[in-house]
């Protein structure tokens, strides 16, 4: 009976892994196939070729797009953390502050408003500020997503042992000193995990760069990739190579930090 | 293993029928890390007894209980319940039930659903031999009444106090009429006041049900007061098994001697004189009624704080001198913590006796029949 359960369990999980990852893995394999064998059904790209990658880097200026994306993702991550950390800390530290409930409500509700309902004014505002085609316009409007960072960080700060903050209060530390010396020190792993999540999330943003970066040179990798594809006879080889390059940085970060990310979710509000 | 020969209850030989009750026969358990959590030649729980497994944390008592329950399979050896080999039987099919340390109530079920869950499953699995719903209802009602849960039947665990949860856990375990009821630290989640009451409740329940109960605890006081049969474990081995009085009065080794009793037994290393009837160490001396034979030149001498008296006697026994460091008030008596030339020791002073003040010199007398001697190398008891 136990053996049967184990088989069923592995069958379920393996089926899920295959169904969810096969298309991407197939795309990865294909990206190494030369043009002549690109539609072959062989799962192993042998003999392999790097011509697709050369084409992607040469013809599509993938490097430039990746750099733009890096600037955006890093910028949004840092900006969101800077904005969210004080708020998250104050939500935990000043439990009895007047209006705390209002703040919490405003943060929670911001997450639930469909972003599509906001893009027209956000777009107009960005144009008004003269940020069209400017990296600032790519980054600052995405502060709207700082609500997520506030909630994630708040959960982590709440999970810190209250006695440590209490001890610091008794030693006469000001709230800012507590934030700087006690909370930040303890929060470093969580901060890393939350930053990684924000980074990955922003890296994969599609709609906003599509709107504010009309010039294909300046846009980020997600809409950039989409620009190369068209309904008529796409060049799959270089396109898939570019797609794999677009995923490579975040997948690498994830594989290196998967434990941390899982832990970050374990402390999220789902308890 | 030294533990094997210490077990005084009859160990079944090949020719004997296995005894009633629970028997762990040559059972050992290793975890994936390779650490041996349990390694016993034979551990017997007499039928109908309230057996307590006691020992410090990590001694293997919980592992032993989980092996009896079937939640853990032994690495080697057999588990027998009333003579039937259940080593590989699934937990729900060996006639045992268990109360968990934190009670592990199903949080989404009402009290009565919690209690009836096992019976309802049995009815579903075996439609011919299972109980009908009227019988299930009757048994649940009975269990609720016996544990004072009738008013709480429709509540959920989240709405109950610790004591109430414990009783639900008990009701869930007894409603299946198990041959063996296992209790894993059932009192540790309760606060001190409730614990006293729950202890009495458990003893009453055992008497009423008349089945075999195995209880695991690290609290030696709890073990001594509740057990009809006591098993002391340490580092995965059984050190001693027997009635609480016997284990307390004749501890088979130094560990058992110091683990049971509060404050613990005093110990000092003493020199045995040529005549064999005189033991001395700086600041203390003992005269024995009969000389010792065949013992090492130095032995460990033990005496319980409660066996000493500050009154002068001429009877054979121990006389020790010391200076009082501290006097603790326990309500019924005082405990004087003293320092002598051979180390620290304690003595219990009855409430009506004059109490020495801190800094005062005292002399304690212990009658010879209350002295314990241990081999300094092996820690085993030496018979005087």
């Amino acid at each position, binding site marked *: 009976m136990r053996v049967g359960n*184990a088989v069923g369990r592995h069958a379920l999980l393996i089926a899920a892994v295959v169904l969810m*990852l096969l*298309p991407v893995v197939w795309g990865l394999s294909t990206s190494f196939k030369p043009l002549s064998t690109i539609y072959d059904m062989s799962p192993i790209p042998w003999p392999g070729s790097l011509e697709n990658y050369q084409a992607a880097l040469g013809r599509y200026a993938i490097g430039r797009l990746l750099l733009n994306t890096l600037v955006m993702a890093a910028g949004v991550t840092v900006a969101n953390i800077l904005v969210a950390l004080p708020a998250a800390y104050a939500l935990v530290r000043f439990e009895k502050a007047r209006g705390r409930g209002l703040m919490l409500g405003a*943060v929670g509700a911001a997450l639930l408003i469909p972003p599509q309902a906001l893009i027209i004014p956000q777009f107009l505002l960005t144009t008004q500020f003269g940020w069209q085609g400017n990296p600032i316009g790519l980054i600052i409007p995405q502060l709207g997503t700082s609500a997520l960072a506030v909630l994630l960080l708040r959960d982590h700060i709440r999970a810190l042992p209250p006695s440590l903050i209490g001890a610091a209060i008794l030693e006469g530390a000001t709230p800012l000193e507590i934030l700087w010396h006690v909370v930040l020190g303890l929060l470093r792993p969580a901060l890393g995990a939350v930053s990684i999540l924000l980074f990955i999330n922003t890296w994969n943003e599609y*709609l906003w760069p599509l709107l504010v970066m009309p010039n294909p040179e300046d846009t980020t990798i*997600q809409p950039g990739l989409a620009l190369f594809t068209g309904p008529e006879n796409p060049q799959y080889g270089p396109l898939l190579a570019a797609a794999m390059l677009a995923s490579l940085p975040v997948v690498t970060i994830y594989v290196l930090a998967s434990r941390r990310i899982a832990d970050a979710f374990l402390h999220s509000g789902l308890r | 293993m030294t533990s094997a020969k210490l077990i005084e209850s009859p160990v079944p030989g090949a020719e004997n029928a296995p005894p009633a009750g629970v028997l762990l026969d040559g059972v050992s358990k290793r975890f994936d890390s390779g650490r041996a959590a349990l390694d016993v030649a034979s551990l017997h729980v007499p039928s109908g007894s309230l057996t307590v497994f006691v020992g410090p944390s990590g001694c293997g008592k919980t592992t032993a209980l989980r092996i009896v329950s079937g939640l853990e399979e032994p690495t080697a050896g057999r588990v027998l319940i009333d003579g039937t080999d259940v080593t590989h039987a699934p937990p729900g099919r060996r006639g045992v039930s268990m109360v968990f340390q934190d009670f592990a109530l199903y949080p*989404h079920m009402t009290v009565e659903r919690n209690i009836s869950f096992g019976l309802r499953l049995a009815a579903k699995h075996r439609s011919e031999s299972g109980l009908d719903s009227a019988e299930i209802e009757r048994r649940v009602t009975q269990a609720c009444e016996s544990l004072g849960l009738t008013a709480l039947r429709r509540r959920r665990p989240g709405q109950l106090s610790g004591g109430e949860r414990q009783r639900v856990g008990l009701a869930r375990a007894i409603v299946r009429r198990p041959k063996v009821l296992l209790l894993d630290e059932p009192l540790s989640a309760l606060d001190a006041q409730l614990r006293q009451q729950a202890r009495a409740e458990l003893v009453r329940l055992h008497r009423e049900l008349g089945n075999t109960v195995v209880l695991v605890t690290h609290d030696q006081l709890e073990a001594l007061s509740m057990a009809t049969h006591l098993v002391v474990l340490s580092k995965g081995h059984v050190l001693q098994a027997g009635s609480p009085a016997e284990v307390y009065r004749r501890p088979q080794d130094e560990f058992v001697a110091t683990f049971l009793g509060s404050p613990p037994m005093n110990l000092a290393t003493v020199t045995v004189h040529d005549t064999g009837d005189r033991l001395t160490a700086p600041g203390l001396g003992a005269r024995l009624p009969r000389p010792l034979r065949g013992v090492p030149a130095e032995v460990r001498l033990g005496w319980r704080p409660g066996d000493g008296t500050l009154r002068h006697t001429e009877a054979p026994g121990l006389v020790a001198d010391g200076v009082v460091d501290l006097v603790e008030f326990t309500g019924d008596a005082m405990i004087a913590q003293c320092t002598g030339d051979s180390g620290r020791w304690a003595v219990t002073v009855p409430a009506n006796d004059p109490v020495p003040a801190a800094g005062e010199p005292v002399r304690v007398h212990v009658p010879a029949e209350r002295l314990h001697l241990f081999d300094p190398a092996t820690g085993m008891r030496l018979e005087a």
Partner: protein
Amino acid sequence: MTLATQTKAGPARKTGSALAWLYFTPAIVSLLIWVYGPLLFTAVLSFLDWNLVSPDAAWQGLRNYGTLVTQPEFGNAAWNTVLYGLCVLPFATVVPCALAIAMWKRPGRASEIYRMLLFLPVVVAPVANALAWQFILDPLHGAVNQTLRAVGLPAVNWLGDPHTALLTIVAVTVPKVVALNTLLFGAALANVDRRTVEAARMDDAREGEITRAVVIPQLRRTMILLGMLSLVVVWPWLFTNISVLTRGGPSNATDNVYFRLYTYAFTFFDAGTASAAAIVIAVAFGLLLAGYAFLSRRFRASR
């Protein structure tokens, strides 16, 4: 904190509140400028006739909302939105719940590896995912149709056939939903007492019964929460795939209200109608959330 401020709660509380709001300021300003301001602005725009550029905008009253009702495209998009939601829901609840339980039941090395692999779809660049799917679903040379032909089945134009296109878009999107929610169910399971499973084993429950009667009921609230949450986060993901793969076609079969809104605003430059659509979406969403709040309160009350 000095003793003096402790005895006089009033002023201490006031300064504490002021200090708290100082810390809130960066976040609250960000939210006001980029979330709540725009929401209000969208509401105003929905009553105007404006092309996003010209200096004059005319007051339209409710006419933009009327346009939505009368245009069959919007009705179609609304209906598709419901279909998308219904199709995504099982992949936001039942499927990840089963996967998370399968990993939780036997913790260890294997489960760690599954956990890592199963989260990958969240990380993979969405456009890369879409392109990979487009490649294997290619009507002529794609791996899926080659396989179908090899076993003697007719090839399907997955993204080009109005009957299959919406389901195909769902299939392209759900790995990400499953991946995220599997992790979140795992987080919820971390708070389930494993001893309740052992207690059920002692009660002679079979593995399936343990899952059904002991584990899943303890996840019921998580199930509702994640079902809800997924209906919040899935639309941008669907949007990307629709935008890359079908642009709402064929014959609007994969269109939904979000893509329609985008089309009104940035293809037709009709800010009024787009904003009216946005407000309709936001209100529909609000109703959905109110429904969720009601449900979850009832669950809490019954606990």
